[in-house]
């Protein structure tokens, strides 16, 4: 099968088969990452610009390493502010970058949907490294790859997701991806952080309590609680949040005995997860990071039209 999209902006836009292709290619890419010399010439001569309007360590580094392992030339740009009201507009920045003939722009931006806007302006491929509260497709793919590593499949699993669903682009990509693959999502979080109609996104159940969500779960995905996003009105404080929506060794027992625990990072230890769980043997958090490189190699590879990997 051929991957026909110029861009990867949202898992919502991809079919089940396309998601499977991206994941299976990522599985193959891991072989490259295990070599002594971790480099193949597949994207030699291609230029990738990592345009990050929001700060990021993990995702930006992961995309950069992914590009380099495929022999592409990668350039990182972090404009100091993201607002179109200050200085150059996003469209102008993109058109100027485009004049330097990149093949792919990997962008993170605070405004949901800004990649669609950009895609209409430029001819090169666009990969979404996170847009507002919309999607974070590479995170969704790496989460699925990590789950597949453990269970050998992505269908028929009970996946619990706990935290601020409203502001989470990871949640939206995970929901889009995992429900397309045939798993069920159980959400928990304060009602102030549960967006309206979220059940209609796929096979999604909103649970009244965290206990209900993680009961007999195969996978527990904890989301980062962000004081800067939640402001003053969505929860009293992190202490109370942690009491009702924090994962600890006690409530983790409600999940299946071999349940895996994941988190997109960065983690607030002691808030959404206790350190005993973060560092415990059910945690797959570092495995997620490792898979991130392979998944991003797969994404870069496919938007460039595929070809052979030596």
């Amino acid at each position, binding site marked *: 099968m051929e991957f026909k999209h110029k861009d990867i902006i949202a898992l919502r836009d991809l079919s089940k088969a396309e998601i499977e292709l991206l994941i299976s290619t990522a599985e193959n890419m891991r072989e490259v990452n295990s070599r002594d010399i971790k480099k193949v010439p597949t994207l030699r001569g291609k230029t990738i610009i990592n345009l990050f309007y929001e700060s990021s360590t993990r995702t930006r580094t992961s995309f950069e390493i992914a590009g380099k392992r495929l022999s592409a030339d990668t350039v990182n740009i972090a404009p100091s502010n993201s607002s179109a009201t200050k200085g150059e507009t996003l469209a102008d920045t993109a058109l100027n970058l485009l004049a330097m003939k990149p093949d792919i722009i990997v962008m993170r931006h605070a*405004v*949901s949907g800004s990649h669609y806007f950009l895609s209409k302006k430029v001819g090169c491929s666009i990969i979404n490294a996170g847009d507002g509260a919309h999607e974070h497709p590479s995170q969704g793919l790496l989460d699925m790859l990590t789950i597949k590593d453990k269970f050998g499949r992505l269908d028929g699993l009970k996946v619990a997701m706990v935290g601020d669903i409203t502001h989470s682009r990871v949640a939206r990509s995970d929901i889009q991806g995992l429900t397309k693959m045939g798993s069920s999502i159980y959400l928990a979080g304060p009602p102030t952080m549960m967006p309206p109609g979220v059940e209609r*996104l796929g096979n999604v159940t909103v649970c009244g309590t965290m206990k209900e969500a993680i009961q007999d779960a195969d996978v527990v995905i904890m989301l980062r609680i962000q004081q800067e996003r939640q402001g003053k009105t969505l929860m009293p404080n992190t202490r109370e949040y942690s009491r009702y929506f924090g994962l600890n060794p006690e409530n983790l027992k409600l999940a299946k005995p071999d349940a895996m625990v994941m988190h997109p990072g960065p983690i607030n230890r002691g808030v959404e997860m206790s350190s005993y769980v973060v560092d415990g043997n059910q945690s797959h958090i570092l495995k997620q990071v490792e898979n991130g490189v392979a998944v991003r190699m797969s994404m870069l590879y496919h938007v460039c039209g595929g070809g052979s990997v030596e």
Partner: protein
Amino acid sequence: MNLLIKGGRVIDPSQGIDDTLDVVVENGLVKEIGKDLAAPAGAETIDATGKYVVPGLIDMHVHLRDPGLEYKEDIISGTRAAVAGGFTSVCCMPNTKPAIDNKAIASYIINKAKTDGFCNVFPVGTITQGMHGDRLAEMGELKESGCVAVSDDGKPVKNSELMRRALQYAAGIGIMVISHAEELELVGEGVMNEGFTSTELGLKGIPRVAEDIATAREIMLAEYVGASIHIAHVSTKGSVRIIREAKARGVKVTCETAPHYFTLTDDAVRGYNTNAKMNPPLREADDVAAIKAGLKDGTIDCIATDHAPHHLDEKDVEFNEAMNGIVGLETSLPLSLKLVDEGLLTLSQLVEKMSCKPSELLGLGRGSLKAGSVADISVIDPQKQWTVTEAALASKSKNSPWLGESMTGAAACTVVGGKVVFSGR
């Protein structure tokens, strides 16, 4: 110039007329309506066969952007768009730069419209000085200068005490207060309606209750002080219900809605379409149904466009950065005629909401074809097929959610003060 408008279906709710008749215009006034009338000396004859002939349409809520924001629209381009849409009068909102909070600005607009404009322009003054929301504007002088209402449109008056005083003071002067009803804390940083679509698109939502609460507040304040209040651009099911209840118990509340609120839902935002971004935002199917029910049962008095031109640079940006508002003057008529096709309104009821009622509420002395009335007349071709394109729009700005779509119905001829100012697209 004298006119004989011949053989059209004349619909004039002010006289209970709906019949195939001729209209004679002499010296800027309607002289006579009747069967087989003879053309007066030197009259131009307009063949209105198969067309509707109605009292000139009035849009009581537009933004002409003049003075100060002429790169979006000005009095000339805005009134040109108005007459192309079949309107003979528009009421322009005061959020110009500077705002219409004094006689100088009001007079500038009235004079410029008289000398250079294509239709009547009635300015709406501000409720508060500079629309800053802290001191009442000089409503007396605004009225004397020709303002027909006051509003801080676009910026709700947050302070309830100030709003109470504004309603009392305006009642004393005899000028209508128009409220942009939104509770700003609930609007927050929202950029579209809060609902399933905002969840899927990951955009910050504006809950419907933000409008409902503000509508309820305005009604309670008006009721308390015994004043009247007009609610602008009603978009929610809740507002319709609250206004209906208030009318039933005798509160002097009136309201308007805009064609986009009975035509589109927030689905139009999909694809992050900035031409579907406005304030209040497009709502959901049950709101559209409630707006239609409100139009039908008379809860909603008027149809106004909230014509809000914005430059391409202000719309061709990321969704959150885009300005609120759409142009509406040239699409209002075909979209509103659909309500008649659907059997929701009779033609006569539609003309009431687009001409008679706005005139009555604002005291414009128009909205009628009685002998002796000012000859503001809209001749409408209900069958005219046309496509909304940037080139087809007379407005300076092209921010319409209907670009590329075909419309049925258009102004065939627009007559202002007995003068033909538009004769078909």
